[in-house]
């Protein structure tokens, strides 16, 4: 009897020790065809378990609670699923729109915002309960039409910036009093903004334009100056290639005083000086860039490409803007995510059903993990970054 007691005590202690851990090195890999997340540990390079029942995860993305315990996953079906990374289960799930494209979390961590295609607009939710706090339709023009919303980014002051694809507008929603959102609208910013990003310091919002050449730039410290057009002369008179996949601007592509941006319909990465907002270089690459992402120390830029060049990943050295390496990690590379300090990068190869992990110093693979049609990879360190 005494032995049994000791044994159970031992078991109990064992369990307690297992549950007591931090989440700073955890993350999720979206297994998009199965509506499932793999919960991963980027210190041990391991899959800890999986969480099912997240619905249609095509084009899914995730943001993190500021304590790093929960991931909020935004699915195509309009679902927001709050996933407990430690318990590895769904904490809450709401369907808030017909067709959604992503989300962001406020500076104070209390508000989760979804950006929606259908019905167009953004919605704000209580981060704890997922209760609806504000509904902001993206109505434009005089006929009550609603635009698809793209490029949602969180800003200092519990504000959010986003762009209206159909309307060609940038809006800032001030949710510091979430029950009474204050909107600032910038009209005629350019044709078909397709995505947006905020610089790591939270100062500038950039929206890439699909319908014309150039990028719309808003200085959030001086919004009264309005939206400026940069890179407007880029590619003038040149024929664009067919674009088989929209580039993404989310993810920081700002390295030092330079921003690295995907060129639309061209096999190039554009380099812009963020002091003057002039183009300083164009780097020829393997295909049409989709993600152009800076390693956290900003020494390297990693780029993946649209179909049919989506088997390649290229690495650019930011010291001289030259290509450092061309990698072939696998078939259909959809996304890359750096560990918090950037010593590894995790790469999803959808059609190989695996995630590749590379050492960013040696540029050699370190490990691979099995995953079913993996798409987005999101680490909890995003919790501490402006813009997500």
């Amino acid at each position, binding site marked *: 009897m005494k032995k049994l007691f000791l044994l159970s005590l031992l078991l109990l202690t064992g369990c307690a020790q297992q549950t007591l851990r931090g989440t700073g090195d955890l993350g999720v890999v979206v297994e998009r*065809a199965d509506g499932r997340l793999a919960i991963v540990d980027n210190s041990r390079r391991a899959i800890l378990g999986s969480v099912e029942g997240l619905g249609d995860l095509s084009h899914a993305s995730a943001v993190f609670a500021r304590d790093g315990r929960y991931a909020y996953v935004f699915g195509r079906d309009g679902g927001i699923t709050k996933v407990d990374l430690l318990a590895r289960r769904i904490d809450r799930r709401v369907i808030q729109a017909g067709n959604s494209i992503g989300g962001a979390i406020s500076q104070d961590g209390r508000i989760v915002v979804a950006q929606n295609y259908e019905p167009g607009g953004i919605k704000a939710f209580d981060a704890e309960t997922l209760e609806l706090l504000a509904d902001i339709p993206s109505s434009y023009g005089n006929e009550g039409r609603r635009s698809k919303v793209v490029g949602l980014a969180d800003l200092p002051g519990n504000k959010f910036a986003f762009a209206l694809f159909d309307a060609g507008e940038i809006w800032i929603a001030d949710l510091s009093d979430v029950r009474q959102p204050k909107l600032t609208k910038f009209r005629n910013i350019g044709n078909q903004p397709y995505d947006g990003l905020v610089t790591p310091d939270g100062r500038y919002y950039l929206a890439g334009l699909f319908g014309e050449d150039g990028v719309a730039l808003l200085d959030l410290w001086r919004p009264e100056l309005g939206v400026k057009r940069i890179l407007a002369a880029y590619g003038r008179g040149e024929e664009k290639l067919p674009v*088989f996949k929209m580039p993404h601007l989310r993810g920081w592509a700002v390295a030092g005083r330079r921003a690295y941006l995907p060129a639309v319909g061209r096999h190039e990465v554009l380099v812009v000086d963020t002091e003057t907002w002039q183009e300083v270089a164009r780097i020829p690459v393997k295909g049409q860039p989709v993600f152009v992402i800076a390693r956290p120390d900003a020494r390297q830029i990693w780029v993946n490409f649209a179909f049919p060049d989506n088997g390649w990943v290229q690495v650019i050295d930011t010291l001289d803007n030259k290509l450092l390496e061309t990698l072939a990690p696998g078939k259909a590379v959809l996304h890359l995510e750096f560990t918090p300090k950037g010593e590894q990068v995790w790469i999803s190869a959808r059609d190989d059903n695996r995630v590749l992990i590379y050492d960013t110093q040696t540029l050699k693979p370190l490990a691979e993990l099995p995953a079913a049609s993996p798409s987005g990879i999101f680490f909890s360190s995003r919790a501490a970054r402006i813009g997500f």
Partner: protein
Amino acid sequence: MRILLLGLTLSFCLSAAAQQPTAARQRELIRLVRQDCGSCHGMTLKGGLGSPLLPENLRDKPADSLVAVVLQGRPGTPMSAWKSILEENEAQWIIAELIKGFPQE
């Protein structure tokens, strides 16, 4: 004029009689539509940045013009021309399957 009409009829018959893609190619096309078209139209094809491609959205539209959209793209929208990737008979097969209800992978 008559010759032109005859020519048009002939080319229509020819394209209608175009070969179906092989079974292996059909599998590739299903993956292409679900995964790559799916990045804009959604993997379930219910729409996203691109229009929905479910049978009820396409049934009333002439198949020929849908095939033309796939091959030539739609100017003024992000829908690009896929003619460098797809043969005409492949685009025809995709449209026919979309109208019926597209196969799962």
